């Protein structure tokens, strides 16, 4: 009985130790000011939204005068999670622009990691965007 219990404890500890999550350190007094925007989300995959959850979205204009979008993601699980994403761009009339080079980008996020993904609009006429997050195939 004691042997079985000891074995069970050992297995539990081994499984718990297999998840490597990420620690991070950063400046508490931030120098840069992010221009955060309010966003609208549609979640159809709750598992994905937990592993690759959107913390916030900020935008800026590049020196070239095109829109750059940055999205902060957080993995609320303890496991590495592969995923894919794609940015879509829209002009002032809401028409989609330049889908030819809007690739599906494979990426991954470590357990507990907060990371940024970003994209630059294909043209100065792009005023709006949409980010699609998918499970890796």
């Amino acid at each position, binding site marked *: 009985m004691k042997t079985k219990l000891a074995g069970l404890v050992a297995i539990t500890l081994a499984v718990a130790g297999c998840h490597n999550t990420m620690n991070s350190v950063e400046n508490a007094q931030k120098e840069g000011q992010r221009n955060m925007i309010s966003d609208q989300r549609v979640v159809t995959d709750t598992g994905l939204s937990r592993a690759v959850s959107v913390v916030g979205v900020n935008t800026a204009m*590049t*020196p*070239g*005068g*095109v829109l*750059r979008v940055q999205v902060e993601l957080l993995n609320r699980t303890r496991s590495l999670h592969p995923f*894919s994403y794609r940015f879509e761009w829209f002009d002032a009339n809401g028409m989609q622009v*330049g889908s*030819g*080079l*809007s*690739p*599906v*980008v494979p990426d991954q996020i470590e357990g507990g990691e907060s990371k940024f993904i970003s*994209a*630059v609009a*294909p*043209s*100065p006429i792009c005023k709006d965007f949409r980010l699609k997050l*998918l499970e*890796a*195939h």
Partner: protein
Amino acid sequence: MKKIILLPLVAASAAFITGCGTNAHYVETGGRQSIVSIGQINDQDFIAAANAAASDLIASGVLDKAQHSPAVLVLSRIVNNTGQQIDTDLLTQKIRIAVLNSGKATFTTTMGLGGKAEDQMAKGLQQQEEFMNDSKPQPLPDFSLSGKIIETVARAGNTSQSTYSFQLTLTDPKTGNAVWAIEKQITKQGTRSSVGF
């Protein structure tokens, strides 16, 4: 009687097998269902590299500092340092399309390496125009785009890993200085079958 029953059954079976014998279907080019090959550059790799290069170039603002507006670019040599035969137009044409669509630059096709124009017809017409109207020859382009694709391979046991480095440089031909550069690396890893090559 048996023939009357068997013949339609045989015909139906043949049609069923023929119709279901192929699993060919369309997938989105460069999408999630694309085949990932460790030992070669796939379509989605060219798309990713071209997207990274074009986005960075457009965002950098270097094209806005050119003498002409929009800036005039010429495509130079893209060196293939991989073990495969690659048509580098799979990369450069995507970059050209993205940069043209941005409105930030145009590309001259009447200049090329060794004096050989990309579009010989256009060059001939341009020379005819210059001769007939006694106009000045085509000015130097603002920038020249050159690059290299490098493959590095690593193996550990049954696991193979290939990294493809797409390096691009924009040079000002008047000064000979590089004014923009990027390196996009794509790494793929997988296991080889224990039987076979």
